[in-house]
């Protein structure tokens, strides 16, 4: 099972939202990172058959994107803005969406829905109207509905937005279990989600591919460019504009800061092992021409 994307382009008039992207994504959870306007949602909508590509091709498990009926059977999609008819209960919404996904066998539907609601911790809310659910509960319902027909490619757009830390961990575990023998494409702004769940990741910026590979290897790009330093608050106020600051944590009377710089920024600054977040920010700043 593989997702193959070749020179995929999507334009809106003169504006190109996705420019000739080529990717090969295998089974497992794949992170999709990028700032607003990077083309993440466009890529996901193309794969969910919600948009027609301007040029290029894509195939899921060898099935070309133009074979929409077949692709729709293979794809589960959680859009960024997830909503269902507000008058429906959780159970009704799941049942309706499962039916629209071609699950005709009622007993099979019920069994699958019960299991999923259990996994996303919504069993107690099964009779609750969707409009009465909290934001976090709605996201969990969104994830469950995307998985209901056991798709081979699960596309989830910002799934952890609005989830508390405990729910976020539970959600990651759920995705991990689900990704066995399947592809999960996880788009997010939360670098931590990618770091802790994705073996591979892709970074998009202004419709262009900026990184595609193992998550751990992204840090190599930032190696030797991350520094930590301790300084007094007065010095911090004077120096803060000189270098890109990745984090600044007050410590007693002073500050512990994490800086991005090609060379040692201060005499006392120590080199640090880059995290994925450091590497991602380095990549984005490099794109923006900031040093």
């Amino acid at each position: 099972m593989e997702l193959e994307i070749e020179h995929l382009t999507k334009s809106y008039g003169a504006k190109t939202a996705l420019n000739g992207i080529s990717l090969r994504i295998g089974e497992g959870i794949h992170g999709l990172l990028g700032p607003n306007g990077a083309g993440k949602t466009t890529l996901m909508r193309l794969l969910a058959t919600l948009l027609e590509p301007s040029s290029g091709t894509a195939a899921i498990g060898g099935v070309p994107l133009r074979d929409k009926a077949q692709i729709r059977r293979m794809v589960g999609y959680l859009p960024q803005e997830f909503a269902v008819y507000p008058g429906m209960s959780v159970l009704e919404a799941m049942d309706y969406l499962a039916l629209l996904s071609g699950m005709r066998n009622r007993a099979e539907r019920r069994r699958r829905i019960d299991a999923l609601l259990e996994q996303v911790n919504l069993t107690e809310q099964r009779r609750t109207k969707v409009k009465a659910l909290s934001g976090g509960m709605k996201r969990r319902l969104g994830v469950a509905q995307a998985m209901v027909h056991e798709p081979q490619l699960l596309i989830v757009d910002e799934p952890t937005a609005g989830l508390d830390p405990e729910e976020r961990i539970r959600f990651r575990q759920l995705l991990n279990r689900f990704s066995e023998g399947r592809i999960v494409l996880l788009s997010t702004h939360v670098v931590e989600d990618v770091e802790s769940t994705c073996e591979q990741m892709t970074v998009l910026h202004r419709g262009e591919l900026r990184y595609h590979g193992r998550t751990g290897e992204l840090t190599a790009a930032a190696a030797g460019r991350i520094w930590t330093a301790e300084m007094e608050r007065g010095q911090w106020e004077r120096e803060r504009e000189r270098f890109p600051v990745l984090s600044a944590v007050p410590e007693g009377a002073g500050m512990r800061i994490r800086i991005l710089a090609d060379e040692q920024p201060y005499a006392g600054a120590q080199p640090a092992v880059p995290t994925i977040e450091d590497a991602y920010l380095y990549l984005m700043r490099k794109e923006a021409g900031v040093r």
Partner: protein
Amino acid sequence: MKELIGKELRMTLRSLVFYLFVVVSCFFYFTQYATSETWSELGPPSSAAPQNIGSAEHPLYGWRAPANVEELAGRMRQEMGWNLQSGTVQKIRIGFLVDKRLSEKEKQAFAAAVSRLEEIIREADKYTMEDVYQVSAKLNRQLGGNTQYRSGLESYEMNLTTPEEGLAAQKLNLAAYEKKVSAGELLPGAARYFCDYLALSAGVFPVFLSAFLLLRDRSSRMSELIYSRSVSRRAYVGSKFIALGAILSVVYLLLAVLGAWQTVSVLELEGQLGEALVAFLGYTAWWLLPTVWTSVAFGMFGSMLFRRGIVPIALQLIWWFVSVLPLMGSYGLFKLLIRFNSPNDYALYRDWMDEIALNRSFYLVLAVLLAAGAAWLWERDRSRADAGAVVRRPRRAKKTSARAEAL
């Protein structure tokens, strides 16, 4: 698809607009059909002595239909004379009767019609009533159509000026009523009358439900969720069409059952409920339901075509206005409703039966075609999450760029 239809039915039953539709339909039933006027028209003529409802100078003991060629031609000539004198004629414009000034050519057409009627009156035994109606039909065509002389619009009734005439008319009416009852035409006539009034609501109110049926996905922000699923357009749009059409049909069929029961009950037609049910349900299915299903399909199709619910509603209102008049006799293919505003006139109905059948068959086919069109448009939009941007690109180039930026 059966399960999807069931789910759509449940969703419709939770809709407040559906219950408003039921209330409005009942309102039409109780204010238009189930009234004392209807019962007096359907029931046997009064046997009380005729009363002068005019004045001492101009006594009036009621009206009666022309009994022969001479009387009909005479009344018609009288009407035409009034038109020539006033220099105007009444025309139906978008459902309203308006006075139109006559041109010289039209006055000549009137004069020719009057002279033809005089010729008929002179040798009345050589002509039939149909020949007389042909004169008015020809004049209607010469005036550009849609005038008061259109077939079925004017009954050319004659004033009864003496109690004796009143009594004679009463006897004739009673004989006609008894003939109608013995021929089994009373209940079918009542059923046609029921359908005529209920068509007024069937021709417009279903669109208020159907115009937002598919747009609801967008307003509930569910479009992407539904478009990305494997359901076929036939199953998705078809289930909504069938569910709404079926539940609205049930409302009218229940009103037909009520109408049959109440008619039999008020007219004291013991043992005729079965016959009444057959007539009311039959006419409702054949006359009303094609209008209901077409209205449902039109709302769905229009909302997909214009991406606005209000546009098909406005268009349907215009269609309704165009179809609502005349009260009888006009069954062209553009007429969404069947108007037959009489519980009697079986002979007229028989004459128009073919036209009515063609009209109803056309609307049944049209309903299916419009629903298929709505499904096609829905499928077209399915892979065009950017459709709004494509449609409005020339005028909203800046917003398009902004949208792409957001993506």
